[in-house]
């Protein structure tokens, strides 16, 4: 009970609704629920509500609705039966009876459930399971060559670099002059420039010797020692001794 202003309010939460209160009253009769007299139960409920009213307790509406319904049921059960009334008071009483039995059964079941050997209260799982794990492990792959090649790369990267320009396959202008002069003495008539070039499969040497030989021929032509002839631009270049 707690006090709010002038009126006392019954701690109606003590019951979980009118059906709960009815069941509590039914149990006070100390008979098997199947033998329960609904009429006696109705009397007790109405008496309880009257008592609460007398104490000026505030009663939740659903308890009063139930009281009104039970008063109606009571009169129906006591007065001569009117066959026109459907459903019959007996049927209503039976329904109430069944409801009480069902609530009681579930209350009982709940208690039995709570009383079982409960995990974490009465029985315990393993406190510190190590767990089942699928470990994905990286199998790192590297071989000795990777290792030393890497070290070589670092060393090479960080060593003072010495720039050595290696000999490239070229024909210098001097070499070309000598070669063209020597070959010119042997040639009798117009000869293509290509005939003066050294045989090679190295494309850079071929380019270099062509360029140098052409320059050498221009030089010799300037000196009046050979003649050059070309029919048209990019056509074959002909050479002969002057």
């Amino acid at each position, binding site marked *: 009970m707690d006090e709010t202003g002038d009126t006392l309010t019954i701690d109606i939460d003590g019951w979980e609704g009118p059906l709960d209160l009815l069941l509590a009253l039914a149990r006070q009769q100390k008979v098997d629920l199947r033998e329960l007299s609904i009429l006696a139960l109705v009397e007790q409920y109405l008496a309880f509500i009257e008592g609460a009213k007398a104490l000026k307790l505030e009663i939740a509406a659903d308890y009063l609705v139930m009281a009104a319904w039970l008063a109606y049921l009571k009169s129906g059960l006591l007065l001569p039966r009117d066959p026109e009334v459907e459903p019959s008071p007996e049927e209503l009483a039976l329904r109430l009876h069944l409801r009480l039995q069902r609530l009681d059964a*579930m209350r009982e079941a709940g208690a039995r459930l709570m009383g*079982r050997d409960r995990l974490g209260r009465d029985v315990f799982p393993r406190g510190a399971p190590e767990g089942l794990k699928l470990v994905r492990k990286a199998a790192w792959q590297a071989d000795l060559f990777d290792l030393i090649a890497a070290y070589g790369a670092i060393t090479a990267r960080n060593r003072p670099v010495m720039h050595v320009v290696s000999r490239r396959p070229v024909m210098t202008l001097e070499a070309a002059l000598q070669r063209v002069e020597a070959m010119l003495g042997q040639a009798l008539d117009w000869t293509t420039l290509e005939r003066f070039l050294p045989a090679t499969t190295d494309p850079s040497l071929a380019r270099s010797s062509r360029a140098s030989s052409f320059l050498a021929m221009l030089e010799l032509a300037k000196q009046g020692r050979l003649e050059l002839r070309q029919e048209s631009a990019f056509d074959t270049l002909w050479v002969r001794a002057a």
Partner: protein
Amino acid sequence: MNPPSHDERAVEAVLFAAEAPMTLAEIRAAAGEGVDVAEGLRALAESYAARGIHPVERGGRWHFQTAPDLAHILRRTREEPRKLSRAAIETLAIIAYHEPVSRAEIEAIRGVQISKGTLDVLMEAGWVRPAGRREVPGRPLIYATTPAFLTHFGLTSRRDLPGIDDLRAAGLLDPIDEVMLNVEVESGDDEG
């Protein structure tokens, strides 16, 4: 005891190390090829019958737990698990014995509305879950229990619910309307 077989030892170690109850399929996957899990479990149950711990099946899942008769030793050091209100206990019982049930059906049995928190508490505990909707007007949500419910309350399956066979036989799990129909058909007039 006899030296346990590899089947038994493998299942034993797997269940022992597991962080949660395991289905047969999960045990099989963990124990590896060639382990007869069913035989391992059978042998295990036998080996541990008299011991302080044993393997149990709960809703198709297996785990090891301590023997109930040692509760007095172990309980002393433990806190009581969450204390349920009467409303929560009744609601849980109604769901377990009637599942699946809608909220309205729970309320019909209890004769009172259930407060929002009641179902929440049960779901938070992991014992109750929504189990779809009932295909009636309004399509209400229906609720059922979970494997964790069976595990917590030490039930191999719902058939192990205390007294469920008696309740069913007494018709106490049938809806009242159904019972009333039968009553009217069979005996017509019955005194309350």
